C-alpha cells in the first residue's frame, strides 16, 4: 500500500467450487484515475468488481481503502453499517441495468435526491435544486425532474443512475458495463458524458467492460483478465496497441472494425 493509492488489493483468491474466479489478483487504484478491467465471460472481472466493492468476499487476500482523512480501512473487515454508509457517500456503483439502482415509481428528482436525504439533508428546496442541477449535468431536461423513470428511455435511465450516484460527489465509482445493452448511438453519448464527468470531478473509477473500445476511450490503465488471472496490466493505449501477453494479443486481434 503506497503513499497515495485510493484502493489497493493484494493476493485476492476466490473459487466457486472448482471454478477459479480470482487467482492471486493484485490491484491498485490512484485518485482520479480510470482503471478498466477487461476480459471475456468467465474472466473474473465482475467478480473482482464485487470483491473490491465489498459486495462479495474473497477466500483470501485483502482490500484496503483510504478514506478522505487518509485512514486505511480493510473493506472486508468493516462493519456492515460503515460499508453501507460508504456506498451511499464516498463510493458509487453504476450497474449495467439502471433499473437495478433506481426506484421506478419515484420521480427523477426523488431518485437523484435520495442519497442526499439519506445523508441527512432535510431541506426540500435545496434537495430539489441539487437534483435539477445534476439532471442538467447528465443532459436530462430539467423539466423532467418530476417525471417517473418509467417514462424514460434506456439511455436516459442510465444517465439518471449516474446522476443519482454522483450527487454525493463520490471519490470512487465502480462501473459494471455501464453502456452494455444500449443502442450504439446512445452508447457514444453516454461514454462522452462519463468521460467528461470523471475528468471534471476527478473521480477514480474501476470500470468493468468486455468492450475494448470503451476501455480505450475512458481508461488511463487497463487490466486484462483471463479465467481469474490478471495476464497483463498497464497503460491503456500501450496494452491495446502493443500487447505483450498471448491472450491480450488474441483479444485485441479479435475486435471487429466497423
Amino acid at each position, binding site marked *: 500500500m503506497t503513499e497515495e493509492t485510493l484502493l489497493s488489493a493484494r493476493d485476492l483468491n476466490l473459487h466457486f467450487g472448482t471454478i477459479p474466479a480470482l487467482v492471486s489478483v493484485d490491484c491498485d487504484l490512484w485518485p482520479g484515475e480510470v482503471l478498466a478491467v477487461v476480459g471475456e465471460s468467465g474472466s473474473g472481472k465482475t467478480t473482482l468488481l464485487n470483491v473490491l466493492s465489498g459486495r462479495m468476499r474473497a477466500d483470501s487476500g485483502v482490500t484496503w481503502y483510504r478514506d478522505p482523512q487518509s485512514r486505511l480501512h480493510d473493506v472486508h473487515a468493516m462493519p456492515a453499517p460503515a460499508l453501507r454508509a460508504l456506498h451511499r457517500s464516498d463510493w458509487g456503483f453504476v450497474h449495467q441495468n439502471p433499473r437495478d439502482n433506481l426506484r421506478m415509481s419515484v420521480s427523477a428528482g426523488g431518485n437523484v435526491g*435520495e442519497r442526499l436525504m439519506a445523508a441527512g439533508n*432535510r431541506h426540500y428546496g435545496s434537495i430539489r435544486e441539487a437534483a435539477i442541477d445534476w439532471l442538467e449535468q447528465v443532459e436530462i431536461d430539467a423539466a423532467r425532474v418530476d417525471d417517473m423513470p418509467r417514462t424514460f428511455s434506456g439511455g436516459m435511465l442510465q444517465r439518471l443512475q449516474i446522476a443519482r450516484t454522483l450527487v454525493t460527489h463520490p471519490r470512487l465509482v465502480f462501473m459494471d458495463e455501464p453502456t452494455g445493452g444500449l443502442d450504439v448511438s446512445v452508447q457514444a453519448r453516454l461514454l462522452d458524458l462519463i468521460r467528461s464527468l470523471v475528468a471534471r470531478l476527478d473521480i477514480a473509477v474501476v470500470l468493468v467492460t468486455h468492450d475494448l473500445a470503451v476501455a480505450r476511450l475512458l481508461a488511463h490503465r487497463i487490466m486484462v483478465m483471463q479465467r481469474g488471472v490478471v495476464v497483463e496490466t498497464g497503460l491503456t493505449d500501450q496494452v491495446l496497441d502493443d500487447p505483450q501477453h498471448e491472450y491480450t494479443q488474441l483479444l485485441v486481434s479479435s475486435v471487429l472494425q466497423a
Partner: protein
Amino acid sequence: MNGYNFAYLDEQTKRMIRRAILKAVAIPGHQVPFGSREMPLPYGWGTGGIQVTASVLGAADTLKVIDQGADDTTNAVSIRRFFARTAGVATTTDTNEATIIQTRHRIPEKALREDQIIVYQVPQPEPLSKLEPSRAETRRMHALAEYGAMHVRLYEDITRFGHVAISYDYPVMVNRRYLMAPSPIPAFDNPKMHMMPALQLFGAGREKRIYAIPPYTEVRSLDFDDHPFRTTRAPQSCALCGADDSYLDEIVTDDAGGRMFICSDTDHCETRQAEGHSGTGEPITREAAE
C-alpha cells in the same frame, strides 16, 4: 369467572407478552416479535391490542375501550364486555377514571397522566412496508437507521401535492432513533405522543409485533426544514358541544349534501356538554361545509 383464566390468556402467555413489552419499552419504537395467540376475534379486529391489554391488566384497573374515539361502537362495546367477563375489572367511558385505555385509531383529547397506560391496536407495524416489500430488508434498514426511502416518499408528496399527503399513520421518529408507525391515528393526534406522561403500548396481532413509547419520550413527525409538519382538522366547530380544537367526525345527514361535524372523542364531547358548552345542534348545508 366463567372458567376463563384472568383476562382470558394463560399465565405463561402473559409472561411471554410482558417480556416482549419490557424489551419494547427498553428500545423505544423498536418492533419486538411475539407469539401472538389465537383470540376469540379474527385478525383485523384488535387481537394485538387485546393481548397487550390482557397482559398488563390487573384486578384493580379500570378499563376504557374506544374505537375511532367512540365508546359506543360495536367493537368497543364487545372488547369492553370481553374484559369485564374474563377479568371482572371495572370499566368506564370516562377518560379521567380509566387506568388503561385500549384504542383503535385515536388518542383521547384529554391529556393522559403518568398513572395511565394507553394501548393502541395496530394493523401494520412496519412503517416502511409500502416502500420496501422485503421484511428482511426493512429489518436491516431499521438496524442501520437507513430511512432515506421514507424521506423520499415525503419528498414525492411535496413534489406532487405541495405538502405531505399522509393524513393518518403518519410516520414518526421515536427517541431520535427508530422510525415508527403510530397506527392509523389521524396526523392531528401525532403531537400528543410527544413527551406523553402515560406509557404507550402498541400491539399488532396479525403481524405479531409489539412496540412501545415510554413516558416522556421524544416523538417527532417526519418533515422537511422548509415544509414543517402541520396538523390539520376540519375548520368547523362541533355541532354538539361547540369545541373548535378537537378532531371532528363528518356525518352526512341527508342526500342533499347536508352534514354535521361532531367530536370524534365521545367522552370529551359529552363532558363538555355536561359542563354547559353547546354547539348549533343543526346540520349545515353543502355550501357552508365547503
